[in-house]
Structures are given as structure tokens and as C-alpha cells.
């Protein structure tokens, strides 16, 4: 912390081991007790805050958004879209004739964009080799600790519609 100190001040050891008894900065028993009491009070207030927040928690509402037409992408093909907002990149994969899966494209490790590897049939993050299962977005390998958030899709007529986000 030398940059915090004035250039012409005494060396640090002279302050920390001062000759003058009044300058000594010991933590007294009373100071420690005060610190402990105030900290536990702060944690108590924080817990109350969490409790109140969970009492008033509202399930978030997601819009219904058409993503693609049926047959727009081939089997094994990929379409990128944004859902639920313009900032949330998502990836949709057609895994079978009538099977579509979709996940958030943000890797749960450090938010790199994951892509679909057709050869190994999984979602791969190139940054740190984090692999996710295409079935449920679970982590197969690498540093990510949580599965990818899943976008719930529904087929309505000729449209594939995104209706919900299920956190992993």
C-alpha cells in the first residue's frame, strides 16, 4: 500500500511499531466484541432481507416468441436467436425429425458462446473446453459448474415457439 502514503512521511515500520504508547493500534477485547456483535447484527438483517425478498418473489413471465418454421433447418442443423430479450443469445438444434432443443448460448463458466458440435453431438465451449449434453444441457466436462439454461419450445402449427426458460 505504499502508493497510499505521503512521500515525505515516516517509514511504515516507525508507524506500526511506534515509540509512543498512544500511537499503538492494538485491537482491544472490547473492539473485537463490538465487531462481532455488529457483524452478527448485519448478518441477521441480511437474512431478514432475504426472507422478505423470497416472500414477495414473483415468478418471472416470459414472452412467447416464434423462433423458426418447421423444416426451416435440417436435422443436425442449428439456428441462433435471442430470447427472452435481445441481449440473451440462444442456440436451437434440430436433433431429430420432430425434435428441437434450445439452450442459452452463454457458457455458465465465463459466458463464452457455446456452439453445437455435430460430430460429437454435444454443445462445446471453445474457451475452456466445457462440454454440455445436448439432451438436457448438463455439464459433461470442463470448468462449468451449472448446466445451460434450457429454452422450452413448443410446436404450434408450422411454428416452433419459445415459451419459457428453465434455469439449469
Amino acid at each position: 500500500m505504499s502508493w497510499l502514503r505521503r512521500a515525505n512521511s515516516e517509514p511504515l515500520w516507525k508507524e506500526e511499531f511506534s515509540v509512543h504508547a498512544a500511537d499503538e493500534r492494538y485491537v482491544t477485547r472490547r473492539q473485537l466484541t463490538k465487531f462481532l456483535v455488529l457483524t452478527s447484527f448485519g448478518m441477521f438483517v441480511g437474512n431478514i432481507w432475504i426472507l422478505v425478498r423470497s416472500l414477495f418473489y414473483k415468478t418471472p413471465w416470459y414472452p412467447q416468441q416464434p423462433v423458426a418454421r418447421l423444416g426451416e433447418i435440417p436435422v443436425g442443423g442449428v439456428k441462433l436467436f435471442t430470447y427472452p430479450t435481445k441481449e440473451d443469445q440462444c442456440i436451437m438444434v434440430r436433433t431429430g425429425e420432430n425434435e428441437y432443443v434450445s439452450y442459452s448460448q452463454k457458457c455458465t463458466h465465463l459466458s463464452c458462446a457455446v456452439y453445437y458440435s455435430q460430430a460429437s453431438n454435444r454443445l462445446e465451449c471453445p474457451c475452456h473446453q466445457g462440454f454440455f449434453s445436448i439432451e438436457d444441457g448438463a455439464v459433461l466436462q470442463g470448468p462449468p459448474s451449472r448446466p445451460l439454461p434450457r429454452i422450452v419450445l413448443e410446436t404450434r402449427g408450422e411454428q416452433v415457439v419459445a415459451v419459457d426458460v428453465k434455469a439449469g
Partner: protein
Amino acid sequence: MFGYEFYVDPSRCIGCRSCLQACEECETHRGNSMINFDFIERRERISSAAYVCWHCDEPTCAQVCPADAIKKGEDGIVHSSLKPRCIACNNCVLACPFGIPKMMEPEQQMMKCDMCYDRTSVGKRPMCATVCPSQALAYVRPEQIAARREKPTNTFYFGNQKITTKVYMMAPAEREAVALDVVDYMREEKHELATTRE
């Protein structure tokens, strides 16, 4: 505190050693006197000087202590080394320009005059000052000492080192400070020869 100050006047010292005896009576260091007692030019004369710790504003003994054992209190008293910390390294003994700290070999601890902290902190006078018959060691109010011919000073020069202290030295009235240089007091060869020839 309490309006009293300590004044040392070596010119008044009659060498009776009452202060040494009184200091030894103290319960905290019984049998060991914390008074510094010197003869001045002992070959030629019988004059002596008894003096206590000067309690410097920036105590050299504490500044050189590697164990952080010497502390200056808020009332200006430089205390003996803290027993749990003192490593008996003698740094303070060597560094103090007044030669005050005393190494207690049996205890392996430096002890020094703390101006009878147990007494002065509750308004009593230090032992040495109470017994000094000529008041060479005086613990009085400043207006009482003003009646003397000498003038109190608490500024000392040791070569280039300037020291200001809590305890006052009675100096000639025309002197602002007491200045000493070690070189001035080194024994010269011609003096040595002169005395051996006799």
C-alpha cells in the same frame, strides 16, 4: 501532570548518594538503583553528579530497540523495557547519549529511571527528589525553580543530534541549550603524559 517538573542541577550535588539509596528502596526494583551517579574529573576533584533519565521527546533508546520493548507514555515518561519483549541486546544502553539505560544481567532486562511512575502518576514526588538534601534533584513547580540563579533548559546537542527532553537541566543563565561533543571530552595524549610525569 500536577504541574510539577523535574530539574537536575549537577552543580548542587554533594555526592551524598541519598538518591541512590532512596531509589533502591523502590518495590519494583529493590536493591538496584536507577540513578546515574558520576564523578566529574575524578583525578582532580571530588565533584559528582547524580541524574535521572531525561525522558526525551523522541527517545533514542526506544528508536533503536529491535524488539519494540521501550515505550513512551502519553504523560511523557519513557518506561523501562517491557519484560516479555526485552531481549537484552544492549542496543539502548549503547545508543542513549546520556548513558541512562541499565542492563540488569540477572534479569536479562534493561531497566531505567521511570521517574517513580508509581508515585508521580498519582501526584507524589519521585523518591530521589524527596531525599536530595541540596535539591540537585528537584521535583518542583516551574515558578519555584525560577528563583534560582541558573536557568532550566531541556534542549541538548550531542554533535549533530538535537534532543529535547521532559526533564530540565539547570544551565548557566546565558546558555540556551546544553551542547556536548564527544570529541571535546576525549582524553588527550599530552594530558596523559603530564599526569604520568608527576
